[in-house]
Every structure is written in C-alpha cells, then in structure tokens.
C-alpha cells in the first residue's frame, strides 16, 4: 500500500487548519474504504475542534511521561521506554469510522518544540504505513520543514492569504523545502481572498491550486465551535479544497 501524504503549511491564521479539515472530510467521504490519518502538528492546536475528535493523550503527554520516568531515575532501559511509548501510542489515536486523528499537543516549554517534533517524526515513520492518506496540519513557519518532520511528503500544500506577508512566507517555506524535503508536487492555495486579487505570477512560488474567497459559513461554523462536518457541501472552503485535491491528484500536471 502506498501512503499519500499531504502537508499543509504557511503563515499563521491563513486557513491551514480549516483547509486541512476540509480536505480530511473530502477524503473520508470520497474514499470510505481507505484509511485516513489526520495529524495536528501545530502547537497552536485547532484540528481537534475542526474534526470534533479528541484522543485521550497527545504525543507531548507521552513524551513528558517518559521524560519524567527518566528524571525520577527509575531503572528503565531504552527498550523499556520504547515499549512504554508504544503502549501509549494507541491512546494518542482517536478513531471514527475510516478516520484516525493524533495531535502533538501543546508543549509547555515556550518556544521549543524540537523534542516533540522529533518524536512526531519517528511516530509518523512507524505508523504511516497503516494509512492510505495522511494529512498533516503543520505549524506556521519553517520549523518543521527545517527539522524534516515532514521529510517524505507526496503533496506540499502552501496556504496564503492575499497579503504580501503571506506570500513572502509561502515563498520562504518553499525555498527552504526545496533543499530539505522530498515531495512529488507542491502548490499554493490562496484563501480569504477579496475580489480583484491577482495571484502573483512568479517563479518563487509553486502553481496555484485554488483561490478561495471569504467563506461566511466557515467563519460562522468556527465561531460556534462546530466541526467541518457541519459545513454545507457547497461551502467555498470545501469547494476550494476539492479543487486543490483534484489539481494535485491529476496525473502529468507539474
């Protein structure tokens, strides 16, 4: 079985979580017989609410528990610790029909997510093979690219709003990613775009997959704490995600 991995990244607040959730819903509805893993890799969390799924533990909880047992000086060998981590891994995975969800959680040590990122990388390497699709809602910025948490991805999805800053971030991430990670196809989704916007035609960013306008249903849904599954089928965010998915899955595109 080949695992197809989508990784979402971009500036904070541009719609990574909303679009990851939309894509996850589309995949789970289009392919009821396929297994999908949704990964909240953003310490700002949010995908859990967007999907209405909450596992009993996060990866950071597991990491802390194991670090604590080392600190207490308990006689634990590396193999014991691995077994311990493997024991709790299933507690980190919430399941609903063909969809599984896991989250890195919210590491307390301000600013340093390197340890949990390293752990996430290892977990993804071991469990990805169980799934047909993996969708990663990434952290804003380039940290996870730098640390190669998403080293082997099929589709790199960069999300930006219409702002100069958003596009700069997308271009910077793309630039770093070219040298550090492997992917088959990359593209940009422009989200929350006002009329009159012209996507920049430059070599600096990969092809545009979709342009999505203001989505009232999405904004409302979010405000009421509802999941992506209660969005109407024709919500712009869902339609845009579908367009992006089709563009990515199309053979021979670049």
């Amino acid at each position, binding site marked *: 079985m080949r695992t197809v991995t989508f990784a979402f990244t971009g500036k904070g607040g541009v719609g990574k979580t909303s679009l990851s959730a939309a894509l996850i819903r589309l995949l789970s509805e289009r392919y009821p017989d396929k297994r999908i893993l949704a990964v909240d890799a953003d310490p700002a969390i949010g995908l859990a609410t967007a999907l209405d799924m909450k596992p009993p533990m996060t990866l950071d909880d597991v990491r802390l528990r194991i670090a604590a047992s080392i600190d207490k000086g308990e006689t634990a060998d590396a193999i*014991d610790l691995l*077994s311990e981590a*493997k024991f709790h891994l299933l507690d980190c995975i919430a399941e609903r029909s063909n969809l599984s969800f896991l989250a890195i959680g919210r590491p307390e040590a301000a600013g340093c997510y390197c340890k949990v990122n390293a752990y996430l990388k290892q977990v993804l390497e*071991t469990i990805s093979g169980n799934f047909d699709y993996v969708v990663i809602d990434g952290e804003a910025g380039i940290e996870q690219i730098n640390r190669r948490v998403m080293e082997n991805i099929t589709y790199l999805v960069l999300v930006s709003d219409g702002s100069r800053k958003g596009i700069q971030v997308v271009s910077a991430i793309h630039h770093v990613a070219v040298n550090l990670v492997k992917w088959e196809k990359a593209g940009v989704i422009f989200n929350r775009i006002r009329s009159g916007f012209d996507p920049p035609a430059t070599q600096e960013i990969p092809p545009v997959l979709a342009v999505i306008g203001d989505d009232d249903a999405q904004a409302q849904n979010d405000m009421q704490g509802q999941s992506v599954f209660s969005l109407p089928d024709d919500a712009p965010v869902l339609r845009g995600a579908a367009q992006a998915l089709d563009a990515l899955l199309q053979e021979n595109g670049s």
Partner: protein
Amino acid sequence: MKLFHDVLQQMRALLPEQPALSAAYRSDLCAESGDKNAILFRSDTAYELGGSGKPGVSSVLFGEIDASQDEVLVYGKDLCELTQDTAFAHLTIVQLKEHSEEDLRYEQLKEIGFRLFQLYPEGYHIRVSPSAGREQVRVAKSALQGAFPLSFINIGCSLIRLLREHEDVARVQTVFITGENVDYAALAALARKAKSITEAVQHTLQFGELDCASCKMKPICDEVEGLRELHMKKEKEKQNHGA
C-alpha cells in the same frame, strides 16, 4: 532460580487447581507473525484483553518449572470464547540453564524479558507498559473467524519459540488468565514484587554496590532470600578476578 520461588508459589496459589486448557509446545502451533508496525484499529478489533480499564497484569519470572516440556496454560476462557473487553493476566516463567544461572550476567535477564516486546502475532496486537507492569491486547475480529480461530495456545507457542531461541533458556511455561474469578490485584502485587527482584538482581550484577545501608535495593534484599548471597558471591568473584 530460587529467588522467585516464593512469589511464584503465591501466584500459583491464586489460580484454580487445573487449567482450562494446556498444550505442550509445538512449532506448528505457533501463530503467524504480523507486521511490527501494524496498528489494529478499533473498528477491526473484537475486544481488548485488559481493555476498558480492566486489569491487564504482565509478568516475566525466572524460576523452576516442574514440567518435562515447554507448555502453555490457559485459565478461564480462550480467545474464541470471549466477546468483550476482559480482565487479563499473562505470566511467563523462564527456567535458565544451570550453567547460565551460575554465571549470570546482567544482560541476560534483560534480553530475555525484552523478547515479550518482540512478539507480533497477526491479529493479536500486544502492548506492554513496563512501568505499570501492564499488558493489553487488541484481538482482531478476523483472527477469530474461520476454521482455525486464534487461540492462546498459538500465541503461547510463538512466545516459547522466541524465548527458547535464547541460548540461556532451558524451559518456558507461559500462562494466560482471563475471566473475573481471579484476584488480579493480588497477582499484580506479586508481579510488582517479581519485577523488583529482577531489578535487584540486575542492580547487583551491574553495579555490585557493597554498602547495603546506602543501597536502594536494601528492602527487597532484606525480604527475598538469596539475593544478598548472590550479591556477595558476585563481589567475591570480582575480587578474585581482580587479584
């Protein structure tokens, strides 16, 4: 090993007189191996041994086995008779070869204990928390179907094979316990004690601390006959060796 003698006896006393099922090891009874990274999803799971917060006691002990062959014992229902999450215990008794016991090394007990983590039978997803002495198992719906549904006998034989591949292992008895009629809390307490004996042996062999007053293993050495003797014997050997 004499050290575990009392614990083992107390554990056995907690079990019914006769097992519901028993089988001598046979290689053709071993379960099929699965993928070590495979996740058994909830939707594919029939039930979980030790699931829903029920007891799931796990223990590996080193002791004497009064049987002429490697064997699997089952107390309570076998896998195909179970339908829902159930209390569970899994005890494995390993008898070391005589010469191995005489010149016991720190790594041996560890290596042997770790073999339980290397068991990946198809449709039987084991997870072990060494710190909690806990073993939980998801059993696949698919494993219980067909003409030959999976049995504890198959799992036990796989484990025996894995353990017997270790050069220091002379004999193995592995015991699966399910159902509500067993005092799991008492079993868990004994499993913790067994673990602390193992740790004390390892500590002794690894660090060879001489000052009992300051050693954190003192309480267990005070309690378990033979631990201190083992320690002193090892020390003496070391000194003789050094001289």
